[in-house]
């Protein structure tokens, strides 16, 4: 009886530690896609828009802040660099490459237009505008 209890006594703690680490790792990395955006952007609300369904890994998110500065993956770009970047992307992935423009609500249309023009130059005639579907509702109201 006593011997049996000793045989079962494998040290489970390290294994459980490792499993918890793995779980925490997967939970935190599962939604990294939305973390690549400029956090200072205040995006407009579009409660009726369709939710983003199939997430295409090729999608390019172009952020335009309130001052009209352009960035991709938090990396500030000039229009010329954006043009080169998009042309290269189109050459690699084709013209149905999804482009999402995420503009701040205060951005003047001029800046958005410049980005759309660059997209059109690269052969991307369909663009998408990113917006927020559901605002954080304080107090669940």
């Amino acid at each position: 009886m006593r011997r049996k209890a000793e045989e079962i006594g494998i040290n489970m703690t390290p294994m459980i530690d490792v499993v918890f680490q793995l779980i925490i790792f997967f939970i935190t990395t599962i939604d990294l896609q939305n973390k690549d955006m400029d956090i200072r952007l205040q995006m407009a609300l579009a409660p009726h828009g369709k939710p983003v369904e199939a997430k295409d890994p090729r999608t390019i998110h172009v952020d335009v802040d309130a001052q009209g500065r352009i960035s991709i993956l938090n990396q500030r770009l000039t229009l010329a660099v954006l043009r080169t970047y998009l042309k290269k992307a189109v050459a690699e992935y084709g013209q149905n490459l999804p482009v999402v423009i995420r503009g701040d609500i205060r951005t003047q249309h001029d800046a958005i237009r410049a980005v759309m023009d660059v997209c059109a130059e690269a052969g991307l005639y369909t663009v998408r505008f990113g917006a927020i579907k559901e605002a954080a509702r304080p107090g669940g109201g």
Partner: protein
Amino acid sequence: MARERKRPDLSPADLPMTPMIDVVFQLLIYFLVTIRPIDVFTHLEVARPSPEAQRERLEVPKNLLRINIFKEGFALLDRPVSYEELDRQLTRAAELDKKQSVLIMVSSYSEHAQLIQVLDLCAKLGLTNLSVISTN
């Protein structure tokens, strides 16, 4: 002798942990599988006609709804309208034909939020044939 000394130390750990850990893992797996993040983001798709197509399109204004966005407000077919009025008019148009072409002409000085507002309205009414043109 050594065993005799060890036993009192072990006794508090005699509680069987394995079933509890099993249950915790089951719960974790259940929540990981069933969790569905809220759809926070939305994408509003528009066509950006190339300059050549733009000219053609402007020449053939057949069944075309033209919405202007200015810094000061909106206009539908050159008539200034409030957002609520635009909503009403577009609802009526969408009831007739959802495939109807909508041309959104955006002034350079308007704010991006206004464009999103109009695109959201179109998404609500199911109008999908949208084009965005920038004006000065």
